[in-house]
């Protein structure tokens, strides 16, 4: 154990953790939205994220920015990232929509018990995973490093790079946008109504099917955006990339209070930070253990997660 290391690098571990956590938080939204409205865990969501990481590389390669290509200027990079967000958002959102149509809706129409949905979602997850695995020959796919991390400023001895700032700010902006959409718009109110009482929502004239499609698409788009940030940060992806991120994001959602949008943010950031502290103290190989121990401890004391209330109850 190396508490001295933690002490010496506290701030830089914090910044690294927040960056990682911002990506967890964006992916966590997909779990939380679907759970908030349907009270079901969308196990295929990890693969929705994975699809986004590939679409990003395909778009970049298609524009002449394959592995080894040198990065264009600042505006070029921003343009490439923006294009990738649109493309990956559409692909992940579309994939999520297909998952809903194929794995959820037929069961919903037959009032299947929750366990059946779980199996169906796991089936969809495996199908996507194997499909992309087969298409990519199970080989990882590289991409150019578009953003060279450059230290922008130092805070309490920790270097903060442009990449970290960009990832954290864009995640926060998307979360804020979603929060406003859910809490301030008519359609968002429809989502909350279905989450709180689906039958009464229908009595108000809310089309439940449309709301469910909407939350799958929104969650998918957020995962798509997260996948671009992931690609920019990590620079390589593979068909199994969704597995660990998916589990972490799900953990983040549960940690913050599943069904709670702001909980997803809190849970994501907290998870990212704590697992980085854990890695600092116990070594990298202990990172995931620390993350899950924290989850168990929090749930022992707060079974509904840190912020508790679900989309169904509080003001999301």
């Amino acid at each position: 154990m190396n508490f001295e290391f933690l002490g010496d690098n506290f701030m830089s571990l914090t910044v690294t953790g927040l960056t990682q956590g911002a990506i967890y938080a964006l992916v966590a939204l997909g779990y939380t939205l679907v759970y908030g409205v349907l009270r079901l865990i969308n196990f295929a969501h990890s693969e929705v994220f994975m699809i986004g990481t590939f679409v990003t590389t395909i778009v970049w390669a298609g524009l002449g920015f394959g592995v080894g290509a040198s990065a264009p200027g600042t505006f070029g990079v921003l343009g490439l990232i923006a294009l990738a967000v649109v493309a990956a958002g559409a692909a992940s959102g579309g994939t999520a929509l297909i998952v809903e149509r194929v794995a959820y809706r037929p069961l919903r129409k037959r009032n299947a018990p929750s366990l059946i949905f779980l199996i169906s979602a796991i089936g969809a997850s495996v199908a996507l995973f194997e499909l992309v695995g087969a298409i990519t020959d199970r080989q990882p796919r590289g991409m150019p490093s578009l953003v060279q991390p450059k230290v922008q400023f130092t805070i309490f001895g920790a270097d903060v790079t442009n990449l970290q700032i960009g990832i954290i700010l864009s995640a926060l902006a998307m979360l804020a946008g979603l929060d406003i959409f859910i809490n301030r718009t008519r359609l968002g109110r429809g989502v909350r109504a279905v989450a709180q009482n689906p039958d009464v929502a229908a009595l108000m004239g809310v089309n439940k099917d449309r709301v469910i499609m909407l939350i799958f698409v929104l969650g998918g788009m957020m995962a798509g955006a997260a996948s671009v940030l992931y690609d920019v940060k990590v620079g390589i992806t593979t068909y199994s990339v969704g597995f660990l991120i998916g589990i972490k994001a799900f953990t983040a959602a549960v940690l913050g209070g599943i069904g709670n949008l702001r909980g997803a943010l809190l849970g994501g950031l907290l998870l990212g930070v704590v697992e980085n502290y854990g890695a600092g103290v116990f070594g990298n190989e202990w990172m995931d253990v620390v993350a899950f121990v924290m989850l168990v401890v929090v749930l022992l004391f707060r079974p509904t997660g840190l912020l508790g209330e679900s989309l169904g109850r509080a003001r999301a």
Partner: protein
Amino acid sequence: MLLELDNVTVSYGRIEALHGISLTVGEGEIVALIGANGAGKSTTMRAISGLRPVGQGKIHFDGQDITKMRADLRVIRGVSQSPEGRGIFPGMTVRENLEMGAYTRRVRAEVDEDLQRAFDLFPRLKEREKQAGGTLSGGEQQMLAVGRALMSRPKLLLLDEPSMGLAPMLIQQIFDIIVEINQQGTTVLLVEQNAQQALSRAHRAYVLETGRIVKEGSGNDLLTDPAVKDAYLGVA
């Protein structure tokens, strides 16, 4: 006829709760539906709103067959319901709950007008405008449920036990308001345990027993009907 149920059956799983009921509600009427617990009153309301599928039979509303129409589209056609148990959205404020009632409406000015009308009908709601629906008292929730159901400007207002859980004073008041709403031009189908009040306010009424309509007549006729008195009015 504004609403017409023709031999409608509704089942929960294998158990049939409505065994073919027929009833009509004419434009401008208040029609009451009374019956013991479990008779199928709420099931009838759910079928009219489209929350439960109809097995056999037909439902016509405003000249159109709505038997298979989606629930949300029926709201647009002009059917609105204040459901049994009130169904307040607990995490929304009073105002947001009322706005939910206007979900299908697009003209902001009209919605504001109706908000005002709801607040005029139930001044208590105005005082609680920003309070979460889940923290209202039972009586306040009932007012909110009725006010909310009016926000879609329905042609037909379905009220499932609007007096449930209210103090006697408030029961009077809520029935007064129902009559007032009706006089402002809204047709009302009213389910009630409080048969005395319901029958004395309704133009016509039906008596439901274990999924069948066993009696119908004007409110006054049923009030004085010995069998109805015996079973539902608590006086011999």
